[in-house]
């Protein structure tokens, strides 16, 4: 059963998966391609600069992978108006778990490619003293951030129209309350509080917040 769902997921999102895995493979290698030899007094400077410049690319790939896989998980069912899923002798929750797990597996695969590529790039670079390579840490953060974004997007894309309407209504109410709180000169604004919570240190997206440095102090 899982193999069938995985195969369906692969068919839907293979282009995105191959492309994103290619980027995950290329970025760490490209980021350290111009690294000078450790005997160059400016090597630490160059490595940190390159690492900082490329650090933005990893969360973008994680987010793109999460989006592509979450969309790919639902596309076949949406297209067939869930007829295939309804004919299967499994409960809805079990079917969703299978769909979720199939996308998750492909996401972790992209994370593994990033880990291998980052390890190879770091191994090929002679680091000056006081600098460290974090290929495994980077790959783990990629996977965690990817899983968080994938779960949220999977749930949002899979909403029934009724639930989607409820969520849109809740967001509108929040915006109205936020404007009202601003007009009434209240110190607490529910909209600001909500945004703080979504992007705060305790949010599911907290893994996106830190420095994604392959080479760092």
């Amino acid at each position, binding site marked *: 059963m899982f193999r069938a769902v995985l195969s369906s997921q692969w068919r839907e999102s293979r282009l995105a998966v191959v492309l994103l895995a290619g980027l995950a493979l290329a970025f760490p290698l490209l980021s350290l391609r111009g690294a000078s030899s450790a005997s160059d*007094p400016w090597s630490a400077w160059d490595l940190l600069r390159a690492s900082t410049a490329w650090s933005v690319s990893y969360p973008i790939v994680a987010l793109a992978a999460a989006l592509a896989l979450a969309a790919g998980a639902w596309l076949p069912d949406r297209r067939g108006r869930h007829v295939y899923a309804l004919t299967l002798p499994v409960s809805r929750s079990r079917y969703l778990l299978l769909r979720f797990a199939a996308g998750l597996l492909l996401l972790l695969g992209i994370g593994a490619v990033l880990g291998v590529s980052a390890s190879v790039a770091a191994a090929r670079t002679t680091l000056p003293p006081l600098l460290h390579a974090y290929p495994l840490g980077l790959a783990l*953060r990629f996977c965690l951030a990817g899983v968080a974004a994938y779960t949220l997007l999977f749930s949002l894309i899979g909403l029934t129209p009724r639930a989607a309407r409820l969520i849109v209504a809740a967001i509108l109410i929040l915006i109205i309350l936020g404007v009202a709180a601003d007009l009434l000169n209240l110190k607490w604004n529910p909209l600001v509080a909500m945004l703080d919570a979504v992007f705060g240190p*305790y949010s599911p997206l907290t893994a996106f917040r830190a420095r994604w440095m392959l080479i760092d102090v």
Partner: protein
Amino acid sequence: MSRIPAIVACALLASVASLEAQDSAAILARMEVRLDSLRRLAVAGDSTTDTVVAGGIRIATSAALRPVVAPAAAEAWRGVLSRFGPDIAGQRALPVQQFGGSQTVIPRHLDGQELATAFEAAAARAIWEQQDTLLVRWLQHSFPIAPLSSQTREDVLEDLVRMPAAANSACLAGSPGACASVLGLNPRMDLLAEWYPPATWPRLAQLADRSRSPGDDRCYGQKEPDACRSILLTGPIPPPVRIAGRQYLVQLALEAGGPGAFGRLTADSAASIRHRLEAAAGITVDSLLGAWAQAVRASRPERPAPTAWMTLLVLGWCAVVLAMSMAEGRWR
């Protein structure tokens, strides 16, 4: 009649009585500062109708803003006293700060604490600017007006690691002498040679972004150290660690010294910075530099690997969101 001569005349009359009894040089200096501030108030003209005074802090504002400004100024002065010590009240008068005017509408979300912090920072900057040239030049007019953030300490650590200065790695390893060199505490004539090996000069000259002339190719192209040296000496040499490193050293000295530390730091303007830091901190400069190096080493940025706590948090959220998604019974 213009308002300025009238205000000046009033101020002079008011001070005549006490002139005889006091030291003439001191009173003249104080008069000068007072007249300056009165002139500024007069120039501000119609927009300024009230002056809030809290200790040494004076804020020119409007009567409408007084209820907001007065408590913030008092809070700011308390902060100044706790940072610089009570002796600061006897030092030179601080310039009048301008805040709003009669036309200013009080912002709805005006945070009194933020205002107090701003007044305190302005007063702290003015106090630092009044100090002697040696101290001001060592800090390059970049003063420790507020406690340094952890991000700034991370930046200092990053500088120590990435800049190819001769003493940086030894300083990070905890050598006080190396840290003294990195922080510009050694009185040397040839700062460039002390800080950077000649092999680094061509790139350093590029980074220093000096204006170029045709002869400069001997440095940038042929990498001749002497040519680079003459380019680099046309302006300030980039320090091995940003000036925030020096600010942090001063902050540590003031914290270690406790009450009166700022007074001891600024008491003897003829002494070297090293001796003044020692006097302020009440410990040897080597101990102070050791503490500085240790604190900077401890400011490593967060590693990319997620912590166990973060992993649990994110996975917990994922489980909740997924469970909510599966609880929905309808397919479409």
